[in-house]
């Protein structure tokens, strides 16, 4: 029982990450009809926004410490961040400690700007081109982006810790009457889950309750008609692209403490996020969220020893197996519309 509760918890947490990435992807597909293979790269750039802010905050000058030596036997140069000079040692350290949450603010304008730039500079020329061309050009862009990041930050993962306040884990078990340490879950992952829920809710609210959102939804359903009504749907779609980029970026920022960002983390998530979107149904926002949670939970269950001992290697293939079963029983995914991406 405890193991099942634990894996459900874990699945929800994983699922929230999947849902968040897939949400942006399906938003772009639904509004613009573009298959964006660079979406994983946007997620990766978001994570590197957190890394960059951390680097900026820890910009340092060096002070020579004569009492210690470096690896060549020379006097050791100790880095002292400017933040500590400006705000004093304690406050400076605290600001650096909170660099990931601060990066949320830092990344939003960057990601929106990047998304708008990408849409205006590249994507808009591909609306009328076949999906295969869109895949190729965005895949090329994804490679270019990740190689640029690699040239700047190297290939190794870069630790980007969460604030100290979120270290350790919360003991759910004691709340539910289990022994201590039976059901524990890290604070930061709980924060991530909450954050994802807020973002997903905000996107839905935005589309549901604002005029802008209504126009966009109408445009998703029938672009031409909305265009005929004299509404400049293109500009709204550009903004939507920026928003989708921001959603992907925020997912990346908050993910940075969970797994240290590296330049290929976007590619690692790319296939998975496409599977999530397709299982949910291309262009369906609730579908993407539902599929994200579903796959997250199933993946967590598949990694349980009890299940692996019956079906060895099931955790290696569960995502794909579920995708196949769902697509065979529900031709357009969980909540897909007819006629989307079938030709």
């Amino acid at each position, binding site marked *: 029982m405890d193991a099942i509760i634990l894996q459900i918890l874990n699945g929800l947490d994983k699922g929230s990450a999947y849902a968040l990435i897939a949400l942006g992807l399906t938003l772009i597909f639904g509004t613009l009809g573009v298959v964006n293979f660079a979406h994983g790269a946007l997620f990766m750039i978001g994570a590197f926004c957190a890394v960059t802010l951390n680097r900026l905050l820890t910009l340092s000058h060096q002070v020579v410490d004569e009492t210690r030596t470096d690896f060549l036997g020379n006097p050791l140069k100790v880095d002292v961040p400017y933040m500590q000079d400006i705000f004093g040692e304690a406050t400076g350290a605290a600001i650096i400690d909170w660099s990931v949450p601060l990066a949320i603010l830092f990344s939003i304008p960057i990601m929106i700007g990047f998304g708008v730039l990408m849409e205006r500079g590249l994507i808009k020329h591909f609306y009328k081109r076949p999906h295969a061309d869109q895949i190729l050009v965005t895949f090329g862009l994804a490679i270019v982006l990740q190689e640029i990041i690699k040239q700047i930050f190297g290939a190794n993962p870069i630790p980007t810790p969460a604030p100290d306040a979120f270290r350790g884990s919360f003991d759910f078990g004691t709340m539910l009457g289990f022994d201590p340490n039976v059901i524990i879950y890290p604070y*930061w992952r709980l924060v991530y889950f909450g954050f994802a829920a807020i973002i997903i809710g905000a996107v839905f609210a935005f589309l549901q309750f604002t005029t802008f959102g209504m126009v966009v939804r109408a445009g998703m359903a029938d672009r031409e008609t909305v265009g005929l009504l004299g509404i400049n749907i293109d500009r709204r779609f550009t903004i939507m692209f920026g928003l989708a980029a921001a959603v992907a970026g925020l997912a990346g920022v908050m993910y940075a403490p969970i797994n240290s960002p590296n330049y290929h983390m976007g590619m690692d998530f790319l296939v998975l996020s496409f599977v999530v979107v397709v299982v949910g149904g291309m262009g369906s926002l609730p579908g993407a969220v539902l599929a994200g949670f579903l796959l997250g939970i199933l993946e967590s269950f598949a990694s349980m020893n009890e299940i692996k001992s019956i079906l060895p290697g099931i955790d290696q293939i569960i995502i794909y197996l579920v995708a196949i079963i769902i697509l065979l029983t529900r031709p357009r995914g969980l909540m897909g519309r007819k006629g989307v991406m079938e030709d």
Partner: protein
Amino acid sequence: MSKTTLTRRGVLRTGAVAGAGVALPTIFTASSARAFTNEPTGGSVTLGFNVPQTGPYADEGADELRAYELAVEHLNGGGDGGMMQTFSSKSLEGTGILGKKVEYVTGDTQTKSDAARASAKSMIEKDGAIMITGGSSSGVAVAVQGLCQEAGVIFMAGLTHSNDTTGKDKKANGFRHFFNAYMSGAALAPVLAKAYGEDRKAYHLTADYTWGWTQEESIKAATEALGWETVEAVKTPLAQTDFSSYIAPVLNSGADVLVLNHYGGNMVNSLTNAVQFGLREKQANGKNFEIVVPLFSRLMARGAGENIKGILGSTNWHWSLQDEGSQAFVKSFGTKYGFPPSQAAHTCYVQTLLYADAVQRAGSFDPCAVAEALEGYEFDGLGNGPTLYRAEDHQCFKDVLVVRGKENPTSEFDLLEVVEVTPRGQVEYAPDHPMFAGGALGSCNPGA
């Protein structure tokens, strides 16, 4: 560079030529007196450095490449000579190898056995490389070793830790300086028993591929011999990035030690996740819960940041070693590049010197002569103390380092501290040890 290569087994027969439908011009070179693959004829000799330049191990590959460039510089008489000063063999004079200037070509393994073999083949076929070296994973090492055996060139393995490289997949043309999973277990187990007690229950998370399995097997055997109990050993997919679902059940399993048989990105993520779950602050079975990472790489450990503090593991070499050879290497590497070398860089540098020295001593580039010179060779002064290249399996036997993540690092490179230098005698094993059984060196292949 003009060359006439004709493999002995591969002489084109006239009938075959007609069969292939190729009209060959008459100026065709006749079977020449080439004794072995890519025999250097001019004033230079070409070595092939085959390292991961793209993919997750690209930084490790870059460090290996730096070490190779340094080695070539030293062999050609440049720089301060590095470990050539401290090497017990004095046959290298800084005039290249056998008087021929050392040149090199580089390639990208992409950490895929396929791509690595393609890259190695191009070095052999196109660039005339006489020796291939490098790599940052065991799959690649075994695959390229097999290729070099078939092509008739020497392979000096880079970073490869699986028992199989000099176990069931050993080859007569392949040599490994790096230590292996068995040695990690043998060196680490006593230190673990001393630090954490002999009554421990271990939970293994193991990367689900050959290297992970051999490491799990080795560590299990070594720790169980000292009284530990293995509660569970769980395989994790290689492509896994988030290990939370594997780590979540650990604390409730009755285990009080978590062993992470992961390397590279897997290790960084699983360790980060384990620390996130607060495992290290917990108590289990009335003891402090501990995490062990049997194979540490300082370069990759940086990605785990603070999380490695206090965690025990083993490593082939570390720049803080105080012996003469290590000091000399760190000095010349650090002076040239501004930071200390990694264990991957060390093993690659040493392998290059060892190859050059063997050629020099053998007086020939013939792979069989070189292999003979390396087999059973005892040397010192290249870090790790007195070392033996065992003839039976082409594995180096030397001291192994047990290290711990440093609590107060002075710089981004100063992440590990050496806890113990396990003497060579303690990590030795018989060539027919069951963990290494099943393969055969075969006979040396000079190609031609």
